[in-house]
């Protein structure tokens, strides 16, 4: 896809004015990751109550695609059922961003946020909920994102 299609107004807006930017004081989920190739960094914080994501924030450094993707993901999951969040797929993220046919190098930027989210949910599922089966499944999904 061409740059004109990637860097639409909305992507630039989320890049320059990220929604839900920041940290939570006592997050139930706190997860950080970086893309070793380009150095994009992302940290996501979530609070989960009664099977709902009640609060979510992120901080990070990186390209417009990775940062807009993270910010839009926080909006997507805010207030959502935990079950639905667990099921989010690569396609959901790309649909949400309106970015398809990104090249292999740049798709990693778009998916870093989902990878961080899934890794965070893995820790939450395995350590707090002791749900090893779901945890393992989500861990596999996270590692398949690159």
């Amino acid at each position, binding site marked *: 896809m061409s740059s004109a299609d990637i*860097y639409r107004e909305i992507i630039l807006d989320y890049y320059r004015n990220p929604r839900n930017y920041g940290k939570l004081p006592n997050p139930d989920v706190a997860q950080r990751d970086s893309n070793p190739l380009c150095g994009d960094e992302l940290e996501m914080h979530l609070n989960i109550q009664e099977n709902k994501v009640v609060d979510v924030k992120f901080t990070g450094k990186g390209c417009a695609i990775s940062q807009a993707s993270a910010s839009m993901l926080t909006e997507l999951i805010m207030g959502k059922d935990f079950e639905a969040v667990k099921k989010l797929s690569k396609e959901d993220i790309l649909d949400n961003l309106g970015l398809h046919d990104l090249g292999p190098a740049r798709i990693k930027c778009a998916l870093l946020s989902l990878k961080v989210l899934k890794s965070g949910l893995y820790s939450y599922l395995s350590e707090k909920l002791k749900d090893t089966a779901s945890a393992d499944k989500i861990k596999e999904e996270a590692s398949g994102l690159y």
Partner: protein
Amino acid sequence: MINIENIRNDFPILKRKVHKDKALVYFDNAATTQKPMQVIDSISHYYLHYNSNIHRAVHELAEEATLAYETTRDKIAKFINAKNREEIVFVRGTTEAINLVAYAWGRQNINKDDIVVTTEYEHHSNIVPWQLLTKERGAKLEYIGVDDNGELILDQLNRYLETGKVKLVTFSQMSNVLGTITNSEEIIRRCKKNGVRVLVDGAQSVPHMKVDLQKLDCDFFAFSAHKMLGPTGVGVLWARKELLEAMVPFNGGGDMIREVHKYETTWNDLPYKFEAGTPNIADVIGFGAALDYLDKIGMDKVREHEVEITRYALDKISQIKGIKIYGPMDTAKRGGVISFNLGDIHPHDLATIIDEDGVAIRSGHHCAQVLMERLDVSATSRASFYIYNTKDEVDVFIKSLYRAKELFRI
């Protein structure tokens, strides 16, 4: 002046189109350069006509292959003005050369509380091996800082030297990010006065300017073939003969031995003591063709051409509003490397946009995260030039930067 038209004709890849119909503008030469037909031909010629293992067999093919392989060693000695051909060890690249020194010299000579000094503008390959070594030996790693002009703060070197604990100073002769040409002679002079060994990373210097090891007077010197028209997988470690003689081997195996008994082995002569196993014969031969190519142009001419292109590019790029250029602006102090940032456009986004116009540059931390921290950026964009690049290509690049600005509405 060099004849660019003739040179470009030797590089078939420069004729290819990218993104359907865009002429390729290859500005990622600090990462790796393109290869001329002469190099490609010499490699296929070896495989087609005299492929065989070297040094051991007595048949004709092996003799031809051994001769070609060893001739590259002579060419290298001449190219960098090394005193002895046996001081030239073939390795996989700069990274392996530095690791070899850290392992085979460092473990014998760096002890508890000793200091190894590197710089803030090193490639990871000249930082990580020293972190590993100093941790293992209980020694310390210190850094010469970089000033706001992108040059090393040499006063800091004096402070370290005064402790009397420095055993090795290691630095790159040209920064792969800032393009800064290090004042190597001065550093080496100060180290020699204090009896301190010096390793010079020549990965970015040897390809772009005349290097004379006898004048430079360092102890270890490393560089890679693929950054100077040669193939990947070949590099050189040069070290003083007496140091190589005292060092333990890096790899054990065939070719590096004199006699092997059940519990005892004696080492082969230099440089073979450090070349265990079947080496990268074809690519060493290809490297010889690359050296011939550069020799024919002349390294002074190579440098002259790059200075001209760099000056032109610096002049144009600094006129763009919102541009931040890193490193010295004086082309006498800078190689053909320009690192920059444009407004709030992240380098990856910038590289994606200008790639659409056929312009290949690098974006990211350039394996120099310590320097990125010093510059307080997470990444930069980097354009780097070589003998086949033209001012017209710089114009395409500059035009593309303006397009990126438009797309990002800045």
